[in-house]
């Protein structure tokens, strides 16, 4: 009996550690605006870094109550998954503690927070700004529309799923959102009312929708990338057509000039004809691709989880197997979305460091720690 008690003790301690003090996580990435890099950090802060001087312009710490039967402090830093988004003189960020913050880009002071008290449900997807409205999906299964100036609630949709972890997309008067349980819903951007069309799949959707012309592209848990024509009940195509890929299409694809570029958790980057779903070429990074690819002029930039930055020249003729122009190791794992500007790629590593990778020189231009003492 004593043995049982002794053996249970570590279990109890592990339990205490897991449930009492939650470690801060999140994979909020980087956004570039007017010479400043905005990023959510791994220790629950929003930071603004001057890209020329690599100096900290400001930081804003987001905290949340630790909750439950805590063995530690009463509040902890709030993880952030969605990348900050800049619009006008404000930067917006949604937190896992279930609040949306609007901070001034000049000083990082809080303009408004929604809700002012409590939580709207954990936010994982990135917000979207359009028509002076910020649209954000929440873990309570609803999409929220907030006024960008004052943070007032314009509308919230009916619950669409158990939880919404993807980013909505706005096209014209319609907002599209994908769900983990395999639906694409279309909502009125004015009222949040469900529109007539929706799409249902046998498997859940892992990625946020991407819209190109009148087609939605998104990845599924059934290891396929879906192309769904808006208004249609059946997919236009599923990729791969013969047998499923090696893993989920977790990252949202990007579409450029009729070609879909999709990274897969099996480590492969696929270039697919948007109209037909035919594979044009593929490249195996040998490490899962968690972040969405980014375009910079004619260059396609892809980063795998092990932190290798691959650069492909889209002007070059590629057949079957692509060969990257550059492959640059930054020395840290990467799960966050990233941005590129003027030949530099800004990446937040899982080690909470910000890297600036110079594509021309083929190396890390500079890096700074985002674990900053206030």
């Amino acid at each position, binding site marked *: 009996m004593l043995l*049982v008690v002794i053996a249970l003790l570590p279990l109890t301690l592990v339990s205490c550690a897991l449930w009492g003090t939650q470690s801060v*996580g999140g994979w909020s990435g980087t956004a570039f605006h007017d010479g400043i890099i905005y990023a959510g950090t791994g220790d629950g802060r929003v930071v603004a870094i001057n890209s020329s001087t690599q100096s900290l312009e400001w930081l804003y710490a987001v905290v949340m109550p630790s909750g439950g039967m805590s063995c530690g402090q009463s509040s902890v830093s709030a993880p952030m998954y969605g990348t900050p988004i800049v619009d006008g003189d404000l930067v917006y960020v949604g937190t896992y503690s279930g609040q949306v913050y609007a901070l001034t880009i000049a000083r990082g002071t809080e303009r408004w927070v929604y809700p002012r008290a409590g939580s709207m449900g954990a936010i994982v997807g990135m917000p979207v700004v359009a028509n002076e409205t910020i649209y954000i999906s929440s873990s309570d299964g609803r999409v929220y529309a907030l006024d960008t100036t004052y943070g007032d609630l314009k509308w919230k949709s009916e619950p669409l799923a158990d939880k919404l972890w993807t980013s909505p997309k706005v096209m014209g008067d319609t907002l599209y959102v994908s769900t983990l349980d395999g639906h694409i819903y279309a909502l009125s951007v004015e009222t949040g009312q469900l529109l007539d069309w929706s799409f249902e799949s046998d498997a859940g959707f892992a990625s946020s929708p991407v819209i190109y012309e009148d087609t939605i592209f998104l990845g599924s848990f059934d290891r396929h990338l879906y192309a769904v024509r808006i208004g249609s009940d059946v997919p236009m195509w599923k990729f791969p057509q013969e047998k499923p890929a090696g*893993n989920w299409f977790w990252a949202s694809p990007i579409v450029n000039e009729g070609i879909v570029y999709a990274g897969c*958790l099996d480590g492969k980057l696929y270039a697919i004809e948007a109209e037909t779903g035919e594979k044009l070429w593929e490249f195996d990074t040998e490490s899962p691709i968690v972040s969405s690819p980014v375009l910079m002029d004619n260059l396609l930039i892809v980063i795998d989880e092990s932190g290798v930055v691959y650069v492909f020249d889209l002007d070059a003729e590629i057949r079957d197997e692509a060969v990257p122009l550059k492959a640059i190791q930054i020395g840290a794992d990467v799960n966050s979305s990233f941005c590129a500007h003027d030949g530099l790629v800004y990446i937040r590593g899982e080690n909470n460091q910000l890297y600036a990778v110079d594509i021309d020189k083929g190396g890390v231009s500079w890096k700074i720690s985002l674990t900053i003492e206030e």
Partner: protein
Amino acid sequence: MGFVEVWYLIIGNPVLNVLIALSHILGGSFGLAIIALTIIVRLISWPLTKRQLNSTKALQDMQPKIQELQKKYGKNQQKLQQEMMKLYKEAGVNPLGCLWPMLIQFPIWIALYQAIMGALATTPENLLALAQRLYSWDIVNQAIPLSSKFLWLDLGHPDPYWILAIIVGGTMWIQQKMTQAPAVDPRQESTSRMMTLMMPLMFGFLTLMFPSGLALYWAVSNIIGIITQYFVTGGWGYLKLRSPFQSTPVK
């Protein structure tokens, strides 16, 4: 290959994938999948359980002799231990034998805890990590994401109403009482009573901290244990012999 990789390869990932597949087969109910997995685990460990129950039964049958020894050598603990070990040896009973099925369940608890937290993907990190642990079976991938709702429970979080804690603690107490032999020595009796209470209390407390999916496993496992014990040992054992408020056995 390190210990962690071997652990996931042999125990962690099979438990996770079987649990998710069961959930898909059982109409998407993760709670029913946990109950089904509990039954499977109990079936697999049946040979061990049977040995344990036979041991318990043998110990029950030996009680008059043990009590006689306790009366005879009550003041000489060393002699009492020697005589009791002799008695156990003659009867071919290992008094610690009943602990093994419990200890063997620890890796299953840990695997189940990881499987529940992983499969329910309560955090985005868990969902991303799940991708690397799933087999390529269609039945598994199509089941994602799983619903954590079962009856009044959110299987990824502790039961806020304490109902499961009471069930786990209560069923564990009954199971303990069915096997806990009465002692003549008041000090032994007191220790025995404390231990009989301590285990259910500890598991009740753990139920309040662990995801209710794991506590559901404990509750169902205890209930199955009570039922099998009842039928194999032929009744309620020591539970019917005395109430929890009595300190001396009823002869």
